[in-house]
């Protein structure tokens, strides 16, 4: 069964079809939210909200297009709003003033590759929002340029130029602020 057929069944009220679609895309949605927000709890909230909104707007979705870019666009918008919103700071304050703070999970032992990836993420976070988003979509979530165009609602040519500019900015950040990554980059 194709994705369009699943969507058609979900529109007709088939809960199992919608659950199947959620299951197929929840990892990408959650991961993009986590990359943009840097907090698993907030990413969870945003991912849940993204599927809620998508479910409500499913009737308006063009089934000739793939679903994932559309879901990721909703997710990115929600994450951006979340970053700006007052609620995020209130939630952080609530956590701070909680009488019994949750014990912080012990930082997991990272392999060298994971540590490099985390440093790369920190370097990407130094870029502007649009540049972050293209790098996350292209290299972390491995979307094609056509999918990126759908997710960002921009022409494919603009995707290329934005990606190129983001990589140049990233190179500058790595050179100036992440010497360990620079060595890895030079070795690679």
């Amino acid at each position, binding site marked *: 069964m194709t994705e369009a057929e699943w969507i058609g069944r979900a529109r007709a009220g088939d*809960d199992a079809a*919608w*659950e*199947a679609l*959620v*299951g197929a895309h*929840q*990892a990408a*949605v*959650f*991961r993009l939210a*986590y990359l943009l927000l840097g907090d*698993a709890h907030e*990413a*969870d909230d945003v*991912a*849940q909200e993204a*599927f*809620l909104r998508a*479910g*409500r707007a499913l009737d308006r979705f063009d089934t000739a297009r793939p679903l994932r870019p559309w879901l990721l666009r909703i997710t990115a918008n929600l994450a951006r709003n979340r970053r700006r919103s007052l609620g995020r700071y209130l939630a952080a304050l609530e956590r701070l003033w909680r009488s019994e703070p949750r014990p912080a999970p012990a930082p*997991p032992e*990272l*392999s*060298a*590759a*994971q540590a*490099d*990836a*985390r440093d*790369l*993420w920190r370097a990407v976070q130094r870029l502007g929002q649009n540049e972050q988003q293209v*790098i996350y979509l292209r*290299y*972390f979530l*491995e979307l094609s340029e056509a999918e990126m165009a759908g997710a960002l609602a921009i022409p494919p040519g603009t995707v290329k130029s934005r990606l*190129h500019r983001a*990589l140049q900015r*990233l*190179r500058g950040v790595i050179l100036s602020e992440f010497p360990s990554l620079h060595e*890895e*980059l030079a*070795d*690679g």
Partner: protein
Amino acid sequence: MADRARTGGTSDERLEAWVRLTARGFPYPPTPDLASRRRAGALAPRAEPRARLAWALAAGIVALAALLAVPQTRAALINVLQIGVVRIFLASPTPPLTATPGPTPTLLPPCPASPAAPPWTRRGAQSPSPSACPLTRPTWASRTTSSCRTWMTQP
């Protein structure tokens, strides 16, 4: 890194390949199972918190306006809130007061007995009277045509 891809090409292509390979190792937290949460009803459509707040606010305003449209309710509310309330108390009539004069206060202290005071300063008595006190004649009085005496009497 041993598993690092050795790529040729231009500097930009090498950077792109390195970023792609490095990003693959990113330690994501475990993805929550949103599909099963939906089965449990957590993903059922619900009103937005902001929309709910707006509806509650609008309902409150409408209810308040409806209450204030009734004059009795409005008066009771104003009475409770004590906004612009003027209370008028009617007192029972009382008999008119009759004035009883008290002792007249002495405005001037009694004159001290002065042995050096000349006899003409007294009016018919050797001791100073509280009803009349002599005042010392000022120096300019000697230059006046007729002598004068100044007496102050109590009212």
